[in-house]
């Protein structure tokens, strides 16, 4: 038998391959938006059958006009701006303190063993129930609320940083050590960069808990802020505006969470698909 050389078929150029359409490309967000839309339509439609009483419930058209009123009058922005201050303080402190505790717990085995049960207990405990006490300790001003937000949002940072350190690839540690790296280099060149995606993932969870902290703090002691506005409109039976405020908090939560998700995808491309 002799060797056989086979002929090469002509290959079409890459751009001859059909491109995906707009709908195919954005299938995921489009379907998500569609579900939200259907939810509001269903909510509105229920009251075609069920009698409507504005003292007990509201419906989307009233909520959206209430929201428009609050936006135009500037009330909403003023309340959000007030609430943003303790949120920023509490959340920033949670990032710094939580990540530090988590990394040390992960890298120093004994610290991890010692603190793990304690942290789990705190995480599982109903910290919200302590809110009145914290307000008494730290006052009705910014600091009391910031502390509540801090305590609610710190745990995802601790646990994720802790898990992140334990998931650090030992091979990379050996690589840096073999090239003459010291303890400091292990932190800076390997541990922190590999933990970073875990911290950002933790931030996604922490944002939701932090926003709960904002509302809880203001329910107990405030004269302005978005949580105060929700409570106030509830007391006044202005349910359209109450729901409008709740809706704005939900939108903020979604925007922050999705923003973080987007940041994760663009900042840590090597983790995509993991």
């Amino acid at each position, binding site marked *: 038998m002799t060797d056989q050389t086979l002929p090469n078929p002509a290959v079409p150029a890459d751009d001859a391959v059909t491109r995906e359409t707009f709908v195919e490309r954005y299938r995921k967000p489009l379907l998500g938006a569609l579900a939200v839309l259907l939810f509001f339509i269903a909510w509105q439609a229920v009251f075609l059958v069920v009698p409507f009483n504005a003292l007990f419930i509201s419906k989307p058209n009233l909520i959206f006009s209430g929201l428009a009123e609050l936006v135009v009058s500037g009330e909403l922005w003023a309340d959000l701006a007030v609430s943003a201050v303790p949120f920023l303080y509490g959340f920033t402190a949670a990032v710094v303190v939580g990540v530090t505790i988590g990394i040390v717990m992960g890298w120093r085995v004994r610290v991890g063993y010692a603190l793990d049960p304690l942290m789990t207990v705190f995480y599982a405990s109903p910290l919200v129930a302590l809110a009145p006490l914290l307000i008494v300790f730290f006052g009705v001003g910014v600091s009391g609320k910031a502390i509540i937000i801090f305590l609610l949002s710190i745990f995802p940072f601790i646990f994720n940083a802790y898990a992140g350190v334990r998931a650090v*690839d030992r*091979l*990379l540690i*050996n*690589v*840096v*050590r*073999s*090239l*003459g*790296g010291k303890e400091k*280099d292990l932190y800076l*060149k*390997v541990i922190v*960069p*590999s933990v970073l995606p875990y911290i950002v993932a933790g931030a996604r969870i922490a944002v939701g808990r932090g926003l709960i902290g904002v509302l809880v703090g203001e329910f107990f002691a405030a004269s302005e802020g978005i949580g105060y506005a929700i409570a106030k409109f509830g007391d006044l039976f202005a349910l359209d505006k109450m729901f409008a405020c709740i809706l704005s908090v939900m939108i903020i939560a979604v925007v922050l969470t999705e923003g973080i998700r987007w940041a994760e995808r663009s900042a*840590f*491309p*090597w983790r995509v698909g993991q």
Partner: protein
Amino acid sequence: MPAYIQGRNVNLTFRPPNRGPVRALYGFDIDVNEGEFLSIVGPSGCGKSTFLNVLLGLIRPDSGDLRMHGKPIAGPGTDRAMVFQEFGLLPWRSVQHNIELGLELKGVPTETRHNVSQHFIEMVGLSGFEGHFPHELSGGMKQRVGLARALATDPDVLLMDEPFAALDAQTRDLMQVELLRIWQEARKTVLFVTHQIDEAIYLSDRVMVMTKRPGHAKKIFPIELPRPRDYEMRVTPEFNDLKLEIWHALKDEITI
């Protein structure tokens, strides 16, 4: 006169928690000449990778004497560098910054680092990929980065722990050719751990066969095939005779 790298009666026992101790190296002796390419083959778990880690300074032996340039190995040092089987690239660093890692740790200034990494990027054939990240590279390219990173610190000895085991057969063949070319250019002493007898013969000046665990040298085969070597050499009778001899020394040590 002592050899360039000299090990005498090196012993190491692992004591993993909750399990019995494992003797990894026992009475391990080795002599490596300056500039030579020495391969170590042995059954799985015989301690050959462990020995590289001991020589690298990451693991301290329990007893015995291990020296390089006549000085005992006391920890990692810039005179030795390892190429790892699983590459060990930092996923958040580009090709260039992975290669510069060792220089960075040595405190080499940015501009010098850049020149050095450029030189080795060219040497390993990765020009145009400086800004790529590891997840964008093929296995063969990843190991080129691993090799360039090890060479960039200008070590005297290159330790290679089954560096091509994670690559497919054809890529592996091409990487062997590349490695010989780079070795001839860079003139380093190389200790190369592998499971493949072919690979060991093709690359080496000498091949050391290890016993099963606890591992030590069983037999050393000088490979007197002329250099430069080419792919065709692998089908010559001389090559095959050596392969058979080494296989006979190795097969008694292998248990499945």
